């Protein structure tokens, strides 16, 4: 009997988290250049010598490397991500402001691409070899080659500027004073284009997994049995094939989330959307290294959490996984 969760998988997630933290710790200390700048951001150049000495003491830059490493871990466990001298704010506050927006657009786009990918993949596999199938397959391969930022820029040029339909930047209309339902509508209108871009980018991954999984399932004996006993096409497709083929999609969705987060760095930059991804871009262009590192850690934790959730969900959706 297997436990609620596979211990080996848990160890794998712990290793990934440790790798991310260690990488964050080592990169600024091993790279050529002034480690203080690489740790605290380029704006430390504007500080007084006393302030700089204080940072060096706080991070422990004068201590041996292993002591610095332990201190780094201790800071992370106490939720201390450091201070952004560029923004003059604690980094935790910056992340708290930005994270909800990113969760909003990634959540919506993941849901949309899951539904679209599963339906299209099912239809495509059901009519494998047909013109519909080959057309969809080629379309998805083409979508995978689409540069994400370019798609976003085209959306802005055409939908926002030429047609004037939707806002082209930000998450809310600034200083609009909208409240209640109108405020929600404003947020949704701003989210349409970023969500559409992210969804279009995520659909091919879901589609290809669903299609492949369906093709595997179609060859199973119980499908032949269902057909032989005279079940209708619709019943075989939805009751037998799609139902059994859907479980790998859950794992893929967790992986897609990692890609979607990466995608937000680009999409939020194009749409000037005030999320965590845009924060990464701002930190990179402003050489505000600690902010960039903290955002990377948050992305890592979110992806690992999503994978954990997928592991827990999988046996609920697919009873076969419970017994093995």
């Amino acid at each position, binding site marked *: 009997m297997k436990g609620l969760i596979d211990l080996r998988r848990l160890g794998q997630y712990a*290793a990934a988290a440790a790798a991310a933290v260690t990488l964050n710790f080592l990169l600024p200390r091993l790279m050529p250049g002034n480690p203080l700048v690489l740790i605290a951001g380029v704006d430390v150049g504007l500080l007084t010598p006393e302030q700089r000495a204080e940072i060096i003491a706080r991070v422990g830059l004068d201590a041996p490397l292993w002591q610095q490493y332990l201190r780094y871990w201790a800071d992370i466990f106490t939720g201390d991500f450091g201070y952004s001298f560029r923004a003059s704010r604690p980094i935790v506050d910056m992340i708290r402001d930005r994270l909800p927006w990113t969760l909003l657009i990634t959540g919506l786009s993941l849901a949309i691409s899951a539904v679209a990918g599963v339906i299209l993949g099912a239809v495509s596999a059901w009519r494998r070899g047909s013109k519909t199938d080959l057309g969809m397959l080629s379309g998805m391969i083409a979508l995978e080659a689409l540069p994400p930022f370019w798609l976003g820029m085209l959306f802005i040029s055409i939908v926002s500027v030429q047609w004037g339909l939707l806002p082209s930047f930000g998450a809310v209309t600034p200083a609009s004073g909208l409240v209640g339902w109108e405020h929600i509508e404003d947020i949704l209108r701003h989210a349409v284009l970023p969500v559409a871009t992210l969804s279009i980018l995520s659909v091919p991954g879901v589609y290809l997994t669903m299609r492949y999984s369906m093709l595997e399932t179609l060859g199973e004996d119980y499908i032949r049995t269902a057909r032989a006993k005279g079940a209708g096409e619709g019943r075989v497709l939805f009751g037998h094939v799609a139902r059994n083929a859907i479980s790998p999609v859950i794992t893929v969705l967790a992986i897609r989330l990692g890609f979607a987060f990466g995608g937000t760095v*680009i999409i939020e930059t194009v749409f000037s959307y005030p999320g965590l991804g845009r924060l*990464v871009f701002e930190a990179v262009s402003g050489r505000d290294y600690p902010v*960039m590192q903290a955002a990377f850690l948050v*992305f890592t934790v979110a*992806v*690992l959490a999503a994978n954990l959730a997928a592991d827990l969900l999988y046996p609920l959706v697919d009873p076969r996984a419970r017994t093995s």
Partner: protein
Amino acid sequence: MTSKAAAGRAGRRRRRGRTSDVLGICGVVTVGLLLIMAVFAPWLAPYDPSERVGRPFQPPGREHLLGTNDVGQDLLSEMIYGSRVSLVVGIAAAAAALLIGTAVGVLAGYYPRRLGAFLMRGVDVVLILPFLPLLIVLAAYLGRSLLNTTLVIGALIWAGPARIIRSQVLSLRSREYVLAARSMGAPDRWTIFRHVVPRTALLATGSFVRAVAGAILLEASLSFLGLGDPIQKSWGSVLFWAQARGAFLTPAWKWWVLPPGLLIMAASLGFALIAFSLEERINPRL
């Protein structure tokens, strides 16, 4: 099974095979044209892309077929020279990834117990970390140069190929000729290079071409975020400047935003189509 159904299925399979061949040829033609563009760039481009040859923000005209950018450089020449960066970085990064991926995959497959288990844990970690943020963090620390872009991309995309090659090696390992070679006392190194590595070549070619398609997109993304080589402008960096100067908010998007994106897509799609058609041959069931 009626003969009509069987004939229908055979027809479908033929159509599928034909389609994948046609797609593969499309890919080869696209990649071939882009390669010609990259190799003969100095003869094809009307101007030096780094020179200021006209008034800034010019729309397309007889002298500048795609207009000029914000400092008066010829956009068409930038497009033509940009193919060099895209293809060189894409192919070099994929080659680096394949080298690491094959080494890890072969070792992990041939010594599946301790070394293999250890290596595959590493592969799992690389695969699970959020990819693009990690890429950006590494690129930001390493600094902006073509070599760094190539290295960073190569260092992050090897895990997928490693997994594919490992599973192939695992099955090769128990084939008779490998067992025969080993039982006759052939050293591991000889067996690996004589019997195992050559038989992963087909699979490795497929993953290499697919990796090029991905690496081209990644290079474009990094350049778009302003992390590309500041001297060698790629299609992605052209879009970075188009974005920074707000070209997509003006009619200039038609000649400043549209062409570089189409070229990035053509390059990535060309390689993806070749990969698709190769994979179809290796494993026709999919």
